[in-house]
């Protein structure tokens, strides 16, 4: 069975500082990894994904994520945080079971950026 762990319920960072939201995963075979962001009373918005290739993936709104196979991690990063980045962030993994393409999500990390 596949699983995702987001070890921090909340991350606090000052505006302008770099931010990291951590994610580790467990899956058989090579994973497909995703990050989504959720604003209050909104659905999940896609940020970025890792399929194969370069371990550093660039996504929307200046976010990027680094895939580390040996540590089974896919941490989300941004060089300079904005107050508007404050939201709930979800890491998700999809394994390679043929046809079954549902995502397994972590429990989410709330990012709070202070002005």
């Amino acid at each position: 069975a596949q699983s995702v762990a987001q070890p921090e319920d909340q991350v606090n960072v000052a505006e302008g500082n770099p931010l990291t939201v951590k994610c580790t995963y467990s899956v058989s075979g090579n994973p497909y990894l995703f990050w989504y962001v959720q604003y209050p009373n909104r659905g999940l918005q896609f940020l970025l994904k890792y399929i194969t290739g370069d371990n550093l993936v660039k996504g929307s709104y200046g976010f990027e994520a680094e895939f580390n196979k040996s540590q089974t991690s896919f941490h989300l990063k941004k060089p300079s945080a904005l107050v508007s980045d404050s939201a709930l962030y979800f890491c998700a993994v999809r394994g390679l079971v043929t046809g079954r393409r549902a995502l397994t999500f972590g429990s989410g990390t709330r990012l709070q950026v202070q002005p």
Partner: protein
Amino acid sequence: EAGVAQSPRYKIIEKRQSVAFWCNPISGHATLYWYQQILGQGPKLLIQFQNNGVVDDSQLPKDRFSAERLKGVDSTLKIQPAKLEDSAVYLCASSFEALAGGQETQYFGPGTRLLVL
């Protein structure tokens, strides 16, 4: 391009009542998912459709939940009868299956927030 549409946005019912949610996926997306997101948790899959066929409903509580996707476009998720623990946000997502292997991105609707009293 229009996103995934869902209605209603909010619903309050009493336990043992029935409720239905509607989803219209992005045009051309063959795969449709329903997820349940309980407060403080990540979304969990209820059911996956490929066109109008069910691919995965292993986590759907079939004694009370049902879903259909007639004609392979819109979908309806129903709960009958509802329990208190069904209070959650119900998210619909869709994806375009251009490639085999699951590389495609799922796009989510705004969700329906259900409160069962």
